[in-house]
């Protein structure tokens, strides 16, 4: 296995920021106390937890008491949907059809338990269908969830407007912002959200830490009971090292966001022009997207094969099936956008981050040209 050289799969996970690692290490060493302990070791841990909570809250314009730490984005999404469902009489819920499986699957689980689920469709440009959204709201759902930015296409949804419409019918409006956090501005209060899901490892923080930001007027039931941590909403000894890392990562992501956004948008647009010229179909090219994400396919070339070929040449990126879910198969996101299955099977996602430079992209284009030439001729041969 050659040493992977260029990492272009930042939407899957990001390298740990060196400053975040430095902040975490004492908590894997001499600062090892349990935050529930009533002695000096415990007090240090509690103080660190408070600081981490304040930093995460500040990054999204929420109050620290509104931040419920979890083991990650999946848990936060599950906590919101199932925790809200326990506190409400079974009714309707609506989630977009392009959500991550950790929103779609809990929603489908609730549907098996007596809730009526509407999956809101998407348009070809990757945004959710406004007419379908309004029709879903007309049925008076208690819970609505629409992601801030899609993990595959990077397409941004008009959150503030959607939230306002949902609020008008009395629904709790939640947004999975795991991909948007750190890449675009998010203000919990200004967006008018009921709840927001965040994750540390997509912003230069560690794996194993996430948060549900929850409007303090709302009540949820815990997903994990026993011990009373996180205001009774999430039991279990707090993972101090990871949460400290999360706090620092959130703060740093805010500090560099605007500068990164401009630079990564330029890199992405340059790459988009190159792949288009090479004959690729770019998904949602006209839509407002995350600065770092480009999703495309070469007709007739399988995305898994292309990603594998690129990996062998030292470029790590995500194929459509790999970033869609743990199961193989074509992307449910592209299906919802009406992309033909044949083209969808070719999907390749390039996602960059603060560590990506212009040379990386230039080298990637070279490798891509080489790969499509090779795979294209193979396809041509096998098709004969």
């Amino acid at each position: 296995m050659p040493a992977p050289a260029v990492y272009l799969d930042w939407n899957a996970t990001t390298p740990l920021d060196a400053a975040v690692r430095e902040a975490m290490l004492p908590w894997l060493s001499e600062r090892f106390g349990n935050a529930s302990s009533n002695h000096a070791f415990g007090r240090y841990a509690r103080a660190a937890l408070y600081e981490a909570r304040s930093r995460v809250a500040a990054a999204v314009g929420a109050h620290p008491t509104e931040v419920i730490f979890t083991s990650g984005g999946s848990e936060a999404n599950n906590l919101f949907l199932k925790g809200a469902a326990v506190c409400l009489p079974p009714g309707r819920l609506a989630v977009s059809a392009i959500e991550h499986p950790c929103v779609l699957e809990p929603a489908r689980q609730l549907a098996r338990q007596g809730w009526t689920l509407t999956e809101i469709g998407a348009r070809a440009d990757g945004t959710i269908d406004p007419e379908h959204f309004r029709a879903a709201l007309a049925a008076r759902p208690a819970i609505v969830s629409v992601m801030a930015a899609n993990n595959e296409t990077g397409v941004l949804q008009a959150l503030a407007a959607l939230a306002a419409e949902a609020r008008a019918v009395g629904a709790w409006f939640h947004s999975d912002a795991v991909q948007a956090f750190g890449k675009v501005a998010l203000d919990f209060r200004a967006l008018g959200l009921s709840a927001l899901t965040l994750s540390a490892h997509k912003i230069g923080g560690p794996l194993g830490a996430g948060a549900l930001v929850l409007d303090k007027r709302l009540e949820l039931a815990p997903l994990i009971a026993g011990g009373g941590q996180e205001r009774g909403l999430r039991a279990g000894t707090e993972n101090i090292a990871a949460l400290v890392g999360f706090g620092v990562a959130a703060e740093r992501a805010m500090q560099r966001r605007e500068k990164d956004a401009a630079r990564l948008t330029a890199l992405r647009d340059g790459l988009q022009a190159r792949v288009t010229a090479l004959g690729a179909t770019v998904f949602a090219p006209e839509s407002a997207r995350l600065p770092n994400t480009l999703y495309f396919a070469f007709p007739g070339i399988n995305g898994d094969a292309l990603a594998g070929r690129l990996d062998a040449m030292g470029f790590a990126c995500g194929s459509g099936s790999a970033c869609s879910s743990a199961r193989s198969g074509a992307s449910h996101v592209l299906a919802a956008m009406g992309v033909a299955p044949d083209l969808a099977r070719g999907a390749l996602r390039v996602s960059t981050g603060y560590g990506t430079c212009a040379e990386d992209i230039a080298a990637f284009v070279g490798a891509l040209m080489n790969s499509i030439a090779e795979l294209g001729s193979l396809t041509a041969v096998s098709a004969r």
Partner: protein
Amino acid sequence: MKLPIYLDYSATTPVDPRVAQAMIPWLAEKFGNPASRSHAFGWEADAAVEAARENVAALIGAEAREIVWTSGATESDNLAIKGAAHFYQDKGRHIVTVKTEHKAVLDTVRELEREGFEATYLDVRENGIVDLDVFRAALKPGTSVASVMLVNNEIGVIQPVAEMGAICREKGVIFHVDAAQATGKIGIDLKNLSVDLMSLSAHKTYGPKGIGALYVRRKPRVRLEAQMHGGGHERGMRSGTLATHQIVGMGEAFRLAREEMATETPRVRALRDRLLAGIQGIDATYVNGDMEQRVAHNLNVSFAYVEGESLMMAIKDIAVSSGSACTSASLEPSYVLRALGRDDELAHSSIRFTLGRFSTEEEIDYAVQLLRAKVGKLRELSPLWEMVQEGIDLNTVRWVAR
């Protein structure tokens, strides 16, 4: 000797420096998401996760594919009990557990009661151990799940889970064991135990916080309803991106536990016994829980007529925990000690000492000396001690409680 001295290893343990070393590459250049299947970063992380799974399984005599990663023992307890109770609810809706279980089990069972399940909370004998006849009698035709901890977190007593497992198997009841406090402390061999589900924690065994596991038996196969849905990780039983560095840490911690338990346990036991001998020199002290069926590192003592929290404050150079709960909203003392039939005053007067890998003789001697001095000082301040010295039986006093 560095102060404060840590004698609270059952609350959490330091991460062993060797464990931290093993984790660090996964916090640096090896940062892939183990679910990324399209490149080497992901494969490398996935291989590390699977190697760790082997190490965790090996400590408890299980197979790697019987290990499901979770965020910790609390989540494991929730997944095991709710997951099994929901999956097997057609068989029955009665759960059996014990009054001295950890809150992660008790609160989970209470949640099931709110959903309409029936629950029985068994008493323990005054040594903290469940009577097997009482356990057997509690299992009814409608009992689907029984949950009993292997080692109690407060008093360190070991429950007879081998015998209980046999009874459960005979009666067709799914048997869950919370072993968070047991790994690396006593030998566990699931090949010879009729245990269906077992909760494990890393941070009580010199691994990192935020990672645990649930053992789910394959033969005979035990099924669960997932509590966290999503990408279908962990064979659909627990979705969510796996935290590679934490998993690697847990694997290394469990590997070290397996290698070192045989030499570590006698050393820790000798220190614990030295602490016990020192404390027994103080008047009116009582050990809580059985001293034979008990892990080597735990000592729980009531210092009569001295309130636990004020004692903790007086001995702040040693970090311990107290059965008194004067800090919590309820003013009730430890429910574990009350379940032993200890009166409330003794429960309020209890201190838990838990020793571990980095405890030294010098630390123990310092602790004993400090305890002798401070217990004496607080008794000078104690009206109860004064009354007892005057020959008054405290049980005959009419207290003016609010």
